[in-house]
């Protein structure tokens, strides 16, 4: 399959914690509009890649470029403003704030109201609030979250909270969306719901997604490209069909000579 010009280029990423090498020379390209899945057993380094991509970890070596702009060395907040959004494996919602406020926070970097104008609720601050509220409402509609608007995020049912977090990431209007195990801990029905929402989001928004996931069925159904990791090293990459039959991937997952 012909691949598009890469939106994200990752080259020779090395990340060490003391004596432990979490990522050892990882390189890959993600093309614009792809749904790029990263798979691998526990501890393979999948979430570490995400943490490097959005600046939470500083890799010791290697470069990350988004659309020609280097991301390495920037702060998480700066990377967010450049258009990288993410969801967390164990939910990163602000539990005392309502769902609306959580989604509005996604638009923080697109807004400009400061402390003083916020206090005065002046013309511009008010107009900005209204305009972004409308944008947030369209995401609420897309993800069918209407009935949870006012609920504090900490009280949302698990499946809804996962969806709300996706909503907050979408509210950021990212160029690149990182999804860290969006269906972890979900039953079959909830997983299918999430798959449906992800497909719908991809249909409606010009997004590139990277997905870390253990649910192989979801990965094989949705992903356009797959990268398989084991112990911080890339063991295979290609289309879902190619990965499925790769002997090294089978070995990493099933262990030993099967």
């Amino acid at each position, binding site marked *: 399959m012909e691949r598009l010009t890469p939106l994200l280029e990752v080259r020779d990423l090395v990340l060490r914690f003391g004596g432990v090498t979490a990522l050892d020379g990882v390189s890959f390209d993600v093309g614009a509009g792809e749904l790029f899945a990263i798979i691998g057993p526990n501890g393979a380094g999948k979430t570490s890649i995400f943490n490097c991509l959005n600046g939470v970890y500083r890799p010791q070596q290697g470069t990350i470029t988004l659309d020609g702009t280097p991301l390495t060395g920037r*702060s998480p907040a700066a990377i967010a403003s450049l258009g990288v959004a993410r969801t967390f494996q164990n939910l990163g919602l602000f539990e*005392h704030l309502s769902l609306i406020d959580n989604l509005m926070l996604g638009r923080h970097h697109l807004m400009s109201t400061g402390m003083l104008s916020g206090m005065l609720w002046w013309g511009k601050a008010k107009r900005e*609030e209204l305009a972004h509220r409308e944008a947030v409402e369209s995401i609420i509609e897309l993800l069918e979250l209407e009935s949870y608007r006012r609920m504090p995020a900490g009280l949302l049912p698990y499946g809804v909270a996962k969806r709300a977090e996706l909503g907050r990431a979408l509210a950021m209007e990212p160029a690149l969306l990182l999804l860290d195990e969006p269906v972890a801990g979900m039953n079959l029905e909830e997983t299918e719901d999430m798959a449906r929402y992800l497909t719908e989001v991809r249909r409606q928004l010009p997004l590139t997604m990277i997905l870390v996931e253990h649910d192989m069925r979801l990965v094989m159904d949705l992903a356009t490209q797959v990268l398989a990791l084991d112990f911080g090293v890339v063991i295979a990459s290609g289309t879902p069909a190619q990965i499925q039959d790769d002997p090294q991937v089978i070995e990493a997952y099933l262990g030993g000579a099967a």
Partner: protein
Amino acid sequence: MAKPHRNLVRDYRQDLRLFGSPAARAGLAAMLVTLVMLPMVVQDDFWLSVLVYVGITAVGAIGLNLLTGYCGQISLGHAFFIGAGAYVTGWAGGELGLPLVLWLPMAALAGGLLGAVIGPFALRLRGHYLAIVTLGLVFVGEHLWRNFRGLTGGNSGTSVNAPVSLGPIDFNRVELAGEVYSRNQGYFWLVWALVAIVALLVKNLVRTRPGRALQAVRDRDQAAEVIGVRAGRYKIGAFVVSSAIASVAGALFGSYQQFVSPDEWNLLLSIQYIAIVIVGGLGTVFGSILGAVFVGALPALIDRFGDAIPGVRTSVGGEGFISVFALNQAIFGVLIVLFLVLEPRGLAGIWLRIKAYFKSWPFSY
């Protein structure tokens, strides 16, 4: 065409109103009428002065709640900024004779600047470093106030004679429709008008972009960074605004009391404010005011009715086993512990429960 129901929200503009429902607007009107009428009904100087102190405390408590309740940072240095505000007033209002419209903003500005100088030292670190740094600040402050005689008059204190007139209205002696009102009545109006203004400003702040960012930092600072909120910047911002509001409270305190000494800005004052925001309810503006009413009035009441409480020593070497000062300390401590254990959402939480009960009445859920 039939008129839509009064509670129906039809657009986002309506949804974003602070006092959106008819019930909320009625409540607001009732509060405003109470504030205007109260000094005419309660004319007793003791009670009026208690209410003035409560109002001043409410201003300061709203400031601390912004920092502690909304941004999750504990400061023990509130007393320092209150003191700074009082001294700025003594200098700008008293010595330079500047009017109210100048010395009050100047006090706020001075408090904000001091906060901006101190905040970065403590707030770039995670955890309770702010509590430790500001604890030191209270003692550094006490030393400064005792030795910086030009401004503070040293140990013996200084008088604060700031003019308090706004256009034709002199709050020391309000003349309205042929009627003359006392200084206490005038100050009640001035102070509680400022409570309303500060409450409105902070309420606006917390429902817009910067306020949401503060709360995001409180709930989960790393997730906040990842979605583009610069946590350090907002922690410092909250500290600056909170310090500025504390200085406004200090300015009002100094100008009302007309005399201030370094003994007033001690750790107990800071702890009193922490007790107020915990008792009132962390992360609520209304709770700060409730807390100020219940806790802020205590010292004055104990002072006045100390004779009637068994075991309280009201004079040096007098009878009783506990001094007024120690009793205050003990009560604040007990209140903090009781509320944290039994009602972490404070009086505001109790109020919300009562409201929810009557909303769904006669059903209990």
